[in-house]
């Protein structure tokens, strides 16, 4: 298995691209997984209630809803499974300093998700095959749902790491640091959104069947819309709690004004959902379905922007460092403003060299003692009188002796470099000391 964690990201731009990539992948992946979880839960609940109450409307709703949830194998593969692998790749590159989430972790999520989807397919297919539902029908569905929820819970914990880089060194040693309150809150926040979105979809769909678009009975459609409205309303009521707990549990470095603002936007949009549903009567035709669904789409976008901003905050230093390193690597020494008059202008070459030495070098160097840099009496003789070699170093200084900090670029004009290099070599050859 390739060790993704050892790969260095190519550049700051690549890093930013990865963050936007993650945004897009989640934009596609989460609604699919969300509707899978939300729709299956409602279907199972209705199936169970239908069995208890003996009302055929419940079971019909359960069956028809399940048909919309499993949107077809290619689509589930495209939007449910492939994005998950992309997230793995993005993670490995974003968390380039460590390999905190090994491939078995992502494979486990993928495996559990596939098992869950297969079980839910079996649950759905039973309706088509038998006139009477087989034994353990609901149980199969529940097992499938639990598997999908478990996969999503694990995914949320992996996702949570992105907000808390402080944990990376700990995670490298013990995987249990994956669990965090913030990840649990995020899991619940997304679940609340999933149910709200499912409620919006059900309300929008409103029990219309493909075979008889207008002919279905009004009582059934009213029942379906009521279910959708209740779900959307309750989810909107629960969202603020998770949004607040998310703000409380987010590490301080992930916070910023944008993060708070997007949280407030989620609250206002949820309020909008509640107001629309309180004003409208769920049973009327052409009801608030489209508006509620649109608000849930906006809530989803606000949550993603919120998370995107928080990840950006948490990693801003790492990104800044990358960009500085990239600049340093490509850069010529930054051209400094030439001084109005070169030090020691109009004097003899030796005077000029001495003047440059005193105004520039003497801040850090003496001939016979260590100041910031090493004593020149020790280091200049290493050039063996080679003025050009010393000039090369002065044009492009760096770290030579690990005991000292690296010498900064001086940005001196060529004639000053020449003057001071000659002065230093001269003085050493004369056996000078300060």
């Amino acid at each position, binding site marked *: 298995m390739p060790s993704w964690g050892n790969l260095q990201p190519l550049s700051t731009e690549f890093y930013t691209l990865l963050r936007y990539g993650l945004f897009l992948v989640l934009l596609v992946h989460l609604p699919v997984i969300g509707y899978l979880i939300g729709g299956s839960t409602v279907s199972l609940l209705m199936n169970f209630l239908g069995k208890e109450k003996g009302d055929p409307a419940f079971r019909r709703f359960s069956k028809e809803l399940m048909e919309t949830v499993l949107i077809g194998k290619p689509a589930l593969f495209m939007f449910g499974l492939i994005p998950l692998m992309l997230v793995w790749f993005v993670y490995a590159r974003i968390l380039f300093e460590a390999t905190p989430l090994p491939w078995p972790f992502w494979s486990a999520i993928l495996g559990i998700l596939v098992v869950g989807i297969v079980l839910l397919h079996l649950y759905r297919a039973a309706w088509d095959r038998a006139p009477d539902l087989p034994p353990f029908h609901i149980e199969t569905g529940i097992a499938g749902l639990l598997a999908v929820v478990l996969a999503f819970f694990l995914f949320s914990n992996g996702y949570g790491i992105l907000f808390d880089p402080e944990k990376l060194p700990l995670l490298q040693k013990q995987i249990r640091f994956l669990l965090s309150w913030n990840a649990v809150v995020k899991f619940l926040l997304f679940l609340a959104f999933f149910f709200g979105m499912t409620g919006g979809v059900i309300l929008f769909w409103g029990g219309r069947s493909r075979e008889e678009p207008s002919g279905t009975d009004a009582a059934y459609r009213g029942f379906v819309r009521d279910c959708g409205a209740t779900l959307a309303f309750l989810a909107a*009521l629960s969202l603020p709690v998770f949004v607040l707990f998310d703000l409380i549990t987010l590490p301080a*470095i992930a916070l910023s004004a944008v993060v708070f603002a997007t949280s407030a936007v989620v609250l206002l949009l949820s*309020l909008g959902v509640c107001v629309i549903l309180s004003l409208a009567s769920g049973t009327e035709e052409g009801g608030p379905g489209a508006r509620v669904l649109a608000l849930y789409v906006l809530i989803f976008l606000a949550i993603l922007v919120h998370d995107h901003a928080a990840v950006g905050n948490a990693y801003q*230093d790492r990104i800044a460092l990358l960009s500085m390193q990239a600049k340093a690597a490509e850069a010529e020494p930054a051209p400094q403003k030439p001084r109005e008059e070169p030090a020691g202008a109009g004097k003899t070459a030796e005077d000029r060299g001495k003047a440059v030495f005193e105004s*520039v070098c003497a*801040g*850090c160097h003496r001939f016979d003692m260590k100041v910031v840099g090493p004593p020149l009496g020790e280091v200049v003789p290493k050039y063996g009188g080679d003025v050009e070699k010393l000039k090369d170093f002065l044009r492009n200084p760096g770290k030579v002796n690990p005991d000292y*900090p690296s010498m900064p670029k001086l940005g001196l004009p060529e004639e000053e470099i020449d003057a001071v290099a000659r002065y230093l070599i001269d003085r050493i050859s004369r056996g000078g000391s300060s």
Partner: protein
Amino acid sequence: MNPRKPTILIAVSGYFGLCLLLTAALGYSWYRAGLAPDQPIAFPHTIHVTTLNLPCNFCHLFVDRSRHAGAPPLETCMSCHRAIATERDEIKKLTRHYEENRPVEWVRVYSLPEHVYFSHKRHVKAGVDCSECHGKVGAMKKIRRVGSLTMGWCVSCHRVRGAPRDCATCHK
């Protein structure tokens, strides 16, 4: 109109209003906490750490010798800045402090409560990298607090590294 509607609307608005207030309060407390306070002199760690490659203990002299890392004495700054970048406003400010023999009152970014005993020396000697607690300081133009400094955070690291977890280790 359903007679219960106004009641529901008022209840829902009150609930969301309260949640919005709490969000605002959390935002305000985050803002007040000032994780990246303004400093009397805009000292860029970026230049000193990343560009110049100065080791942390070049300025924080006591980090491996004392409980406190210590802000550098002005002489340390002046040993270079007598000659380097003297035309800059911030360096002029620094020079004035030095000439008037008036220490710079840096605003503290990391502080622990009194009942916590913490020694930089022990942590440096144990091989904990500065960045594990202070983050990528070399990328911070203005220093900001990175570590949460909560007890759970300390204990997690102590557990992972096999450091003592006795109460008296930190609470003398």
